[in-house]
């Protein structure tokens, strides 16, 4: 569909006004919100690729996150009105000792847009706070974010706290953030990791959707 390609391109080119207008136009023309969302996710993937190729700066990545946040706010009521019940509950936060929230916010927005109910605990979140949030909410997915490598110790401590609280067998754990990779995932004891927000959505869908069907 032409409008979806245009939305993807506007987001990829960081053209804020055009992207927002095209999203509104698409919804007015009854293009399904989830398809608009998918086009935006494709756009974000392309932004990430341009960053890796050094065509984009860090601030361009942030600009894309900012545009996506606004698109997410437009799509959210449409996705809910589409009758889709929540795709599942996720507890999310930047781990203890790390105060960076830009990456976390992009992932949280992407998950919310994908119809997940996200309990965002903010930054510098100690293991016990993750544990109590999981217990109180009954969420079965935990997402931990960290920009600094010091976050690894906190991620590991949080996974250990989950074990101590008897939650580890029922809660799936994903980690992400700048320095995260498969090796980090293994060392901290998480179930999986994501290099970008789209991967977080894919993981959450893979873990939560089978449980609901």
């Amino acid at each position, binding site marked *: 569909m032409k409008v979806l390609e245009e939305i993807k391109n506007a987001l990829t080119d*960081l053209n804020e006004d055009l992207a927002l207008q095209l999203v509104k136009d698409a919804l007015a023309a009854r293009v399904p919100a989830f398809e608009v969302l998918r086009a935006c996710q494709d756009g974000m993937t392309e932004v990430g690729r341009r960053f890796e190729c050094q065509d984009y700066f860090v*601030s361009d990545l*942030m*600009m894309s996150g900012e545009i996506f946040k606004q698109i997410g706010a437009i799509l959210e009521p449409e996705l809910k009105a589409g009758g889709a019940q929540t795709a599942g509950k996720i507890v999310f936060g930047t781990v203890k000792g790390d105060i960076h929230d830009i990456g976390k916010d992009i992932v949280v927005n992407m998950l919310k847009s994908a119809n997940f109910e996200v309990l965002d605990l903010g930054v510098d979140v100690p293991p016990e706070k993750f544990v109590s949030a999981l217990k109180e909410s009954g969420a079965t997915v935990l997402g931990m974010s960290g920009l600094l490598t010091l976050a690894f110790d906190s991620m590991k401590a949080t996974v250990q706290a989950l074990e101590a609280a008897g939650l580890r067998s029922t809660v799936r754990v994903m980690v992400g953030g700048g320095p995260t990779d498969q090796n980090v995932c293994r060392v901290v004891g998480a179930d999986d990791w994501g290099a970008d927000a789209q991967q977080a959505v894919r993981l959450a869908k893979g873990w939560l959707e089978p449980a609901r069907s």
Partner: protein
Amino acid sequence: MRMKVIACRVMIDEMRGFLPAGVETEVFEISRHIRPKRLKEDLQAAVDRMDGTCEFILLGYGLCSNAVVGLRTRKSRLVIPKIHDCIGVFLGSHQAYLDEMKKEPAFFLTQGYIRGYQSDRSGPLDELEKVTRRHGRERAEKIVGELMHPYKRLVYIKTAQAADVEADREYSVAMAARFNLRYEERPGTSELLRCLASGEWDRGFVVIEPGREATLEQFMD
């Protein structure tokens, strides 16, 4: 030749004072940190160039977004400070860094950082300028403001090795004012770099033997 050095721009000037004369060094710009996977490839390529031409290759890097994990040599030994990043180096330890952040979140600068930012125009002030050019002032303020909002203060770490501190102070005070951060100064140390350059690797260093590779576990407590 007993040792050669591969270092980040942030560390190299402070290291030089401790290195024997004539030591070969290869320096990478600070902005390489932004893409850690590529930095890892570039570091490995630099290690490969030096491998076998000296007994030890000293790395003026910490764990640095995992960029050093997986580095390996075939003939020389690789020596890396056991530290997450250079703020810990200049504050004296990883714990000192955690303690500072616990007090109040801070954006840290050292002479090496300032020179690094000036060298490849990669500091927050430069980022503000770039994004203003591309997206206009209003959006630039918003975006770079978000980048800096976790921090409450800007702390200039003054090491004994630093020269012309007044110029650093001017840069740091201007940056603090631009991002509404409280400006502070505190003394730092280059002791870890002195130990690195002097071969005192008993504590606080990861030494990789030929044929082995640096692992994440070696840097974690």
